[in-house]
């Protein structure tokens, strides 16, 4: 799983049974439906969406679209289906293999849609976007590109940006007269000082593994630049042999051996609130996490979020060739269109809604930072404008925004890579073994 704020993709046996039943049901139902003949009252397209708090923004967009002139012209309406977050990926996978497939669906771009693209189930939107002023100019280019697959667009950005940010505890920093690190040496220096003071430098939800992945993503990017992972993402497993990957893995081992994450991080989880609590309670001074850490803390420890939560970009690494302005994380989420869509015009008309000012305003009000090019003007209305502006600038100025590796590689490779990262952090494999194992992934 990428960094979805609700975290893991764990699902229960009950889910599996439920999914089977659902598939049977939807298959059966749609089989009945097709016999009944559609067409009366225009076509209604279904859109699968990740069902968390942000879904109200999409619901509002759907409601607006359904009564718009564009919908009337295209002769179609949208019906939103919210799917609980932890079930989203497997549910989408089962649905896409059945007649009950959605016409439009939420995804993470990149590798998360690769199997669908390879199975010929998605519409290539490259020409549509190129030929449409609204879509072409509506979004930040780095964000639009980050969801690409081999240079082709299959999705239109539809949610807030989720860059990975170095969060810190302001009062701990003030107490020990520290500044957020801008270079790796400073980070190591702070690390040493905090350890002497008996404070774990970094909170880390190691049992989920994806928080560990964030460290590697930034280290590899700062050391070797975004091209290192781009090569791997494009299918060249030899890319894991880049010296930057080995160097990053060695730096990870140094941090772990040095106690930068404390001694218990392998059994701490982010999803169940363990790591955020360690951080908020001052047991750890910093936390490398996606931008949703702010809302997580606001929900669980509001005082901490409002008064003590500080944020900074990931420091640069001396001698590294990567641009220190580069960002990793989830650029955003995307809408993609099923190749067997019942009304392509209506689907595309709906996607244009996501570039509108009203839509961006809704996202901002919900605490998200939109990826639209006009977003900067709206950020004053955010629940925390300072934080929103920091995020927006970070992404806008980033020469490259690398999609979370697990999302970029897709489920199969991503899962296997998680295993290797878990082993590296837990000390079950050396940096050299890590690189060798990753090169063998296929």
């Amino acid at each position: 799983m990428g960094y979805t704020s609700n975290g893991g993709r764990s699902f229960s046996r009950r889910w599996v049974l439920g999914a089977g039943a659902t598939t049977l049901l939807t298959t059966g139902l749609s089989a009945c439906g097709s016999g009944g003949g559609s067409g009366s009252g225009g076509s209604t397209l279904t859109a699968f969406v990740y069902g968390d708090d942000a879904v109200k923004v999409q619901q509002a967009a759907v409601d607006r679209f359904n009564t718009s002139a564009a919908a009337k012209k295209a002769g179609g309406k949208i019906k939103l289906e919210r799917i609980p977050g932890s079930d989203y990926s497997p549910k989408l996978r089962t649905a896409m293999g059945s007649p009950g497939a959605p016409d439009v669906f939420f995804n993470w771009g990149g590798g998360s849609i690769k199997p669908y693209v390879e199975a010929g189930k998605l519409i290539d939107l490259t020409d549509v976007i190129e030929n449409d002023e609204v879509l072409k100019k509506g979004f930040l280019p780095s964000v639009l590109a980050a969801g690409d697959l081999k240079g082709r667009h299959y999705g239109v950005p539809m949610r807030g940006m989720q860059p990975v940010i170095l969060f810190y505890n302001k009062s701990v920093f003030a107490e020990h007269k520290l500044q957020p690190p801008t270079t790796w040496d400073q980070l190591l220096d702070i690390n040493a000082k905090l350890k002497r003071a008996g404070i774990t430098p970094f909170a880390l939800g190691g049992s989920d593994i994806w928080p560990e992945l964030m460290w590697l993503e930034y280290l590899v990017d700062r050391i070797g630049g975004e091209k290192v992972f781009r090569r791997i993402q494009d299918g060249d497993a030899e890319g894991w042999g880049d010296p930057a990957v080995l160097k990053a893995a060695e730096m990870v081992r140094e941090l772990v051996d040095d106690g930068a994450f404390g001694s218990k991080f392998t059994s701490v989880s982010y999803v169940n609130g363990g790591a955020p609590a360690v951080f908020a309670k001052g047991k750890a001074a910093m936390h490398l996490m996606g931008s949703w850490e702010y809302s997580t803390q606001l929900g669980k420890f509001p005082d901490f979020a409002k008064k003590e939560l500080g944020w900074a970009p990931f420091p640069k690494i001396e001698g590294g060739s990567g641009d220190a302005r580069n960002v990793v994380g989830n650029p955003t989420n995307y809408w993609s269109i099923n190749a067997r869509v019942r009304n392509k015009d209506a689907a595309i008309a709906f996607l244009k809604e996501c570039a509108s000012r009203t839509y961006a305003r809704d996202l901002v009000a919900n605490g998200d930072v939109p990826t639209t090019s006009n977003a900067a003007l709206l950020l004053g209305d955010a629940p925390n404008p300072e934080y929103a502006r920091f995020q927006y600038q970070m992404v806008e100025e980033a020469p490259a925004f690398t999609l979370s590796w697990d999302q970029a590689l897709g489920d199969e490779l991503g899962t296997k890579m998680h295993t290797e990262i878990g082993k590296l952090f837990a000390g079950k494999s050396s940096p050299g073994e890590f690189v060798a194992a990753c090169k063998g992934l296929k």
Partner: protein
Amino acid sequence: MSKAATKAGPTAGSKPARARAGRPHAAWALPGVLFFAFFAIVPMALAFYLSFTEWDGLGDPRPVGLDNWSRLLDDPRLTQSLWLTVLLTVCSWLFQTVVSLLLGVWAAGKQRNRAVLSAIFFVPLLLSSTAVAVLFYALLDPNFGIIQKDTLGSSSGAFLAIVFVGGWQFMPLHTLIYQGGARQIPAVLYQAAAIDGAGRYRQFFSITLPQLRHTITTSSVLIVVGSLTYFETVLILTKGGPGTDTAILPYLMYEAGFKSYDFGYASAIASFLVVAATGLSLLLVRLTGFGSMRSTREGM
């Protein structure tokens, strides 16, 4: 197992005519057979078929012959998994058998407090495995739990936690089985032994244990097959970690199927598990002489 036992039971020694009169028509078994076929046999056959294909859940499965099976043989993770599964089975068997045998024999007594305590011991079995695992996960939280140690983060700690939590949950069942078994032992045996001057321990090892040998087999088969298919606890407590140190076979299968969407390979692992579990339980029954159905009361 239970099917074989019920089939063998009533037929033994009964006259054909009486059997025909006193037993229901075979058609009565139809709903059960259909249910079993639809929910056990068909999926099993389907999984076996899928093990010879490549399928990511989209489109149609593509036949790949023995690819998944040869991959299975070459996979270093499978070797580790197999070893872990065997280790887990052995440890669970030892832990659960020893404790529930003693508890069961003790609970077979007649004092009132035993009945009350037995009822309390039974409680964990009423909870779902998921609830039990979630509960222990919270208790083992390294920063906010009751044991503030990196239990689940160390290989041995995580493994022992799985053995313990599984034992905690399933021992009540086995205790119940042993309690029932122990109550079946005729009191005359103990009275005779007491006259001969046998003490408590001598009575336990010379009467109780031998008399319980079929009970031990029954309980062991359940524990062994149960441990082979152990899943929720691993998923919730450790997710196979740290590293891959608790990734037992069923977890490996889940990961291949529902995280990597590599259903062909997952099906190969599943088929392998079915074969291994069936083979193992048959072997257990054969070795212990359970199948021959000789009574423990022979010669009495």
